[in-house]
């Protein structure tokens, strides 16, 4: 059975439907947000690194290497993902979200110093609440790296670990 596979890298997102799976791996403190509309059978996934844009962050170069990935920030990434799922035929009332990641990989680093994973999760939950999108399931926190795979035909998300 021919199934398309889309690989999403850190900071990126993808949306689609039909016989397609969207995969992303190496999720540590990053947060992967999956949004799926059960009725329209469309959805997508965003792999974000930082909770929110630092105020005043302006880029001064136009060098393509400095191009900002679309889902770098959790809040902006979710809003963009929701818009894209809508464009693909989804509607907010039927969207459900799932969260993956937000881990604290190095156990010996005090949590308060490097709570980037937890902050990513907090912002993800808050942004989804603003958009009135319920969180259907979470596979988050701890000290383990994760891989996530979304099957766009049925919205099933497979989360695996290697350790």
């Amino acid at each position, binding site marked *: 059975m021919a199934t398309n596979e889309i690989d999403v*890298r*850190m*900071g*990126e997102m993808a949306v689609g439907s039909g016989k397609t799976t969207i995969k992303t*791996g*190496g*999720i*540590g*403190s*990053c947060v992967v947000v999956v949004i799926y509309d059960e009725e329209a059978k469309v959805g997508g996934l965003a792999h974000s*690194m*930082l909770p929110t844009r*630092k105020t005043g*962050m302006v*880029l001064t*170069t136009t*060098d*393509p*290497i*400095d*191009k*900002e*990935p679309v889902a*770098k920030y959790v809040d902006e990434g979710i809003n963009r993902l929701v818009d894209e799922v809508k464009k693909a035929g989804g509607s907010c009332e039927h969207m459900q979200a799932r969260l993956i990641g937000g*881990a604290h*990989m*190095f*156990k*010996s*680093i005090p949590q308060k110093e*490097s709570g*980037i*994973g937890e902050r990513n999760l907090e912002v993800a939950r808050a942004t989804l609440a603003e958009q009135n999108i319920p969180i259907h399931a979470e596979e988050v926190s701890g*000290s*383990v*790296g*994760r*891989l996530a795979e979304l099957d766009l035909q049925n919205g099933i998300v497979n989360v695996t670990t*290697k*350790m």
Partner: protein
Amino acid sequence: MTQLTELERDQLKEVVNIGVGNASTALSQMLRKQVTITTPDAFIDNIEGIPTFLGGTDVVTTAILSDLTNDISGTMFLMLPPDSAQKLAALLTGDNEIDIIKEDGMGQSALKEVGNILTGSSMTALSRFLDLNVIASVPHIATDMLGSLIDGVIARMVEESNTVLVFRVHFTVKDEAIGGDLYLLFDPEVTKKILSAMHSKFSN
């Protein structure tokens, strides 16, 4: 950061070389084995490209990292395939069956000591050469998918930039199947600081 000239990049590589050269000598003394290192590679890439450059997002890797603070802020880390890390720990402890996954076990402790020595000796050389201060944190260790180990480090680096500058040195231990990579990532504003320290050093 993207405006670095070829010359500036070479100068930075030279600085890294000074630090890491010292580290390989220290490691060689610690292991009583010959340690070979390559000259540093400098890579500058967009955020999305970094995990691939470091060796593949989903590859299970052992990472020992230290945070650098003060004038030269950034992160230094050592990455090894887990079997290489296990052999290194075995060589240091004399226990061939040593477990490097067990939290706070002897295996992790031995590898952290390697991290300590590599970071300490390279930073001592760097700070002497540049007349800049640097404090290295205690080493932290974890084994998991490479992408998951470094995303937190990268995230911190790209708070004010979308590009990451990475220096890499590959090392191998003679007669042992042990090899790994030593990475040095400076915070975005630090590269300029290092270059100006070099300029004032050479103009005097």
